[in-house]
């Protein structure tokens, strides 16, 4: 108990909370970028354009099947070798957006696939173009269905941000490691505290997902 009090001084606590803020910022930025990118890829895969869709699908599959940790390290350590030099924060956002876009595109394609084909036929029969059908009929329905899986993807993002501590992103996990470098007695208190922070953040998100799920069902 004493270790807890010693480890969680106001200074340490403030330092850790700033880390949580960075974790949240990276997560939110990444989900926005990956959502846009993932939508484009998802629609391309859904449209079944000859050759192009399967090519994009294959590239997408390659990214999806790599560990995120590898992509993070690659972006930060390897890309500068070809002159793409990003600060650690943006490097993390880029790596996570890239990876999550590949994950999200599958969700988006699945959401589009789940829309009844009758919706297309109905819209096309009233004279709407393919693009209009997509924009006004299909996508709104599909996005509504996708909100819960999107939130669970956001939860993954919040958790996965911790991997960027490996490239010294000053997120919650990294800052926790810094604090217990002061004294090894702080290891357990700090790990417990970090667990608590992540759990609360993600649990709230998962409750939100459940609620939206119920409301949309």
């Amino acid at each position, binding site marked *: 108990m004493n270790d807890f009090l010693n480890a969680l*001084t106001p*200074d*340490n606590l*403030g*330092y*850790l909370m*700033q880390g949580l803020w960075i974790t949240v910022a990276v997560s939110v930025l990444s989900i926005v970028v990956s959502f846009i990118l993932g939508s484009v890829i998802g629609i391309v895969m859904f449209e079944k*354009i*000859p*050759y*192009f*869709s399967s*090519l*994009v699908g294959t590239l997408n599959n390659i990214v999806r099947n790599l560990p995120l940790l590898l992509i993070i390290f690659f972006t930060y*350590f390897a890309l*500068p*070798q*070809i*002159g793409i*030099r990003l600060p650690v924060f943006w490097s993390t956002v880029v790596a996570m957006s890239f990876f999550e876009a590949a994950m999200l595109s599958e969700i988006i394609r699945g959401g589009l696939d789940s829309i009844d084909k009758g919706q297309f036929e109905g819209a096309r029969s009233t004279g709407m173009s393919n693009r209009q059908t997509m924009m006004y009929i299909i996508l709104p329905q599909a996005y509504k269905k996708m909100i819960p899986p999107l939130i669970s993807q956001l939860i993954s993002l919040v958790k996965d941000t911790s991997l960027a501590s490996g*490239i*010294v992103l*000053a997120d919650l996990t990294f*800052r926790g*490691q*810094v*604090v*217990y*470098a*002061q*004294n*090894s*007695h702080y*290891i357990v208190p700090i790990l417990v505290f970090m667990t608590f922070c992540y759990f609360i953040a993600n649990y709230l998100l998962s409750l939100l997902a459940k609620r939206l799920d119920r409301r949309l069902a």
Partner: protein
Amino acid sequence: MEKNKKRLFGITASILLVLILIVAGFWAANRAHENRMHQDTLARVEKTKTINWGVKTDTKLFGLVNTKTGQSEGFDVDLAKALTKQIGKQLNMKLTATFTPVNASSKVQLLKNTNIDGVAAVMTITKERAKIVDFTDPYFPAGNSLLVKKDSGIQSIKDLNDPSKTILIALGTTAADTVKKEAPKAKVLALQDYASAMQALKAGQGQAIVTDNAILYGLVTENPDYHVVGGIMGYAPYGIAFDHNQPGMVKESNEALAALKKNGTYNALIRKWFGQVQGLDVSQLEVTQ
């Protein structure tokens, strides 16, 4: 009709994408080649009027983050600040020191990638490393020692030269070479950082940590059941590192370091950071004129 159009679009887009990928590949390979070519650190420093130093965040006495300020503090950090000021004086301009946190495995990568200008992060000068980076003159007289449990009976690294023994080191340090030379039969386990290595030692995953004496003294301050043995294996002092082939930067830094040693700043910093460490004779570290 529409089907044919879609098909045509698909083929065109696919060819385009493949072309883009190929071009990007060649461009990347080309850029990688170009990027290996020389970039003058001193010129960059003069242009930006800052020196961006890579420092540790988790190493007591050398670079440990103060959670109040969020900045690393320690001998390395203070010395880097003093050097920046001194180099500025030499160049007749006001230089600012900025700091980027690095860990053992990222410091050289970041230097090579020019994310940072110099590394002041408990980095030992070795021949191997000197092929890849440029070192200044030594700024701290370090060498590898052993950290073992007080009741373990281990006195020197020779006691560990046995396949049943495991020696713990931190990733990207020189300890690997020392162990290879002094105890080739022992198993080696490399950990991400010193805190993990200490934990591994406590958990009995290995019998000893081999790393720089200065760091081991930092570990001893909070772990009184452990002590440092085995003397100093090889004089392996720390140096400030710059990217390869930077004679200008190295020359300025060496001049600055000599000046700091001469005007007493260096000794003041030594006393500030190592005066309190038990079992360490500070006068050994101080420079005498």
